[in-house]
């Protein structure tokens, strides 16, 4: 069953230099129990897409389209109703565990907050829950640890604590924005392992935003590849790695160390001055005249495999 359906989502913000088109007509679906990976290079609008689902973008951002969560359009809810969705139905895990916790509150106080907010628990009961959660994310001696401040936690522990906070109210969907960024490789592996285990055991869906294909391969069922503001390819994880169709995806995969470490030509375009037609044509080795003026539509190239490219028209 579809849990979240994003329809023609656009998120623009105006800056002094012009209008930044961070998300430009995105369609996505996340089923229950599904982990969808959203990959793409830095600055392609992945994080903005994640934030727009929870309506956390600043007020001067224009968000259009539909974000249907269990059939309800989140963009039409008022602030009060939205607060009941945040943390309870859809939780977010942020990319930088080092700065995503309040430095002056103890870890216990912070993790108990969602319990107090959404479940109406008293502080004392909430703390009991917190200890359970920290046990779940394997933080040793949690009943002592909850009295400590974030700076007394290591990076990996802090990210695990953040995961505990995200999972606290048993949300149906977790948006994880580069949850392994800033952690070293061994800790990354632990965190990935933990997230995989927890999302499977709690039957939680996840939107994993990352540029780390290794992490994505480990966790995701399906992958959506994003290139400035658009989804350019969508496929299940095995298919995508075996049979990438879009020239950008091919280039992306070829740039992996295991596949030749070939750098892609050019730079990703600025979100203010997007090229006409296919956004990728200035860097594309197969670009033709048509690509410069017309925007390609998503075409189905195989079972559950879609690509936005004229090569497959």
């Amino acid at each position, binding site marked *: 069953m579809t849990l979240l359906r994003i329809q023609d989502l656009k998120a623009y913000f105006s800056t002094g230099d012009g209008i930044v088109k961070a998300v430009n007509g995105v369609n996505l679906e996340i089923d229950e129990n599904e982990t969808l990976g959203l990959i793409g290079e830095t600055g392609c609008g992945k994080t903005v897409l994640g934030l727009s689902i*929870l309506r956390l973008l600043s007020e001067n951002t224009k968000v259009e389209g539909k974000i249907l969560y269990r059939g309800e359009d989140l963009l039409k809810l008022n602030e009060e109703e939205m*607060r009941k*969705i945040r943390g309870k139905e859809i939780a*977010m895990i942020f990319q930088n565990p080092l*700065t*995503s916790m*309040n430095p002056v*509150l103890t870890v216990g106080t912070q993790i108990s907050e969602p319990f107090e*907010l959404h479940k109406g628990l008293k502080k004392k009961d909430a703390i009991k829950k917190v200890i359970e959660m920290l046990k779940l994310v394997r933080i040793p001696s949690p009943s002592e640890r909850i009295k400590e401040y974030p700076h007394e936690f290591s990076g990996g522990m802090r990210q695990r604590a953040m995961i505990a906070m995200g999972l606290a109210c048993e949300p149906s969907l977790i948006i994880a924005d580069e949850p392994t960024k800033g952690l070293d490789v061994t800790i990354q592996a632990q965190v990935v392992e933990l997230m995989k285990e927890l999302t499977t055991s709690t039957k939680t869906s996840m939107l994993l935003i990352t540029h780390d294909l290794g992490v994505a391969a480990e966790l995701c069922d399906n992958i959506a590849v994003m290139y400035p503001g658009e989804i350019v390819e969508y496929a299940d994880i095995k298919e995508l790695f075996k049979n990438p169709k879009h020239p950008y995806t091919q280039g992306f995969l070829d740039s992996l160390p295991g596949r030749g470490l070939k750098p892609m030509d050019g730079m990703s375009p600025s979100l203010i001055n997007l090229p006409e037609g296919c956004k990728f044509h200035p860097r594309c080795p197969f670009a033709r005249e048509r690509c410069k003026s017309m925007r390609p539509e998503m075409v189905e190239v195989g079972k559950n495999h879609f690509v936005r490219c004229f090569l497959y028209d």
Partner: protein
Amino acid sequence: MSIVQQLKKDKLAMIGAIIIFFLAGIAILAPYIAPYDAIELDLKNRLSPPDRNHLMGTDNLGRDVFSRIIYGTRISLSMATVVVMIVMLLGIAMGTIAGYCGGTIDGAIMRMVDVLLAFPNIILALVIAGILGPSLTNVMIALSAIWWVGYARIIRGSVLSVKEKEFVEAVRAMGCSDASIAVRHVLPNVLSPVIVLATLDMGHIILSIAALSFLGLGAQPPIPEWGTMLNEGRPFMETAPHLMIFPGLMIMVVVLAFNFLGDGLRDALDPRMKEVMMK
């Protein structure tokens, strides 16, 4: 290193703290310590210089200056504490609202702050106290009405920077309301400069209360307030200098003590500042 440990290393701050505790003790125990009643007249014994019976002498109405100083400590410290509490609350509230809400509200509050800052503090307080009429309560009202602006500015600045931090976004993603984000998550992050400022301001406010009382707008005779005592002693400055020396000394010592402690606190709470100064 904890703040207390760091403070202990700072000799001046410790001296300040000791003096303040000592004076606070005196203020609390005033009725038990004072050898005489502070307002009882003894007309036979007027203007006597300090001696064994009257440690600091007597004033023009024969009242014991030492006892009056002790009661004066009580008045000055308690009034300054109340004023600092009020300005802290007011300043923190206004600063947080301005910084967190931004936009028009921010503009309105901060322009008001700018206007108040454009006047010299003591003159504005003089005007307000003058309009309300001379009394201790009115001096407190006057000082509170103008003194909060410094706090509002400091708090607003820190709130502006803290509210852009990632953890604020993280708690918003958790479903916290704006009010609870501002109070529970942003405020605790911005309080340390306020603690320093409040300590330093204790001294300044004591000084201002004394100044206003000296000018006749504050405590009215026979209340043993230090500024009032200075004013009452003024005509006898040449014949009985002890009437002005002792209240003046007390004011100086208290202000100095609070300044020492405030400086020490600032160094302890903001280690970066110290490093910069050492270089």
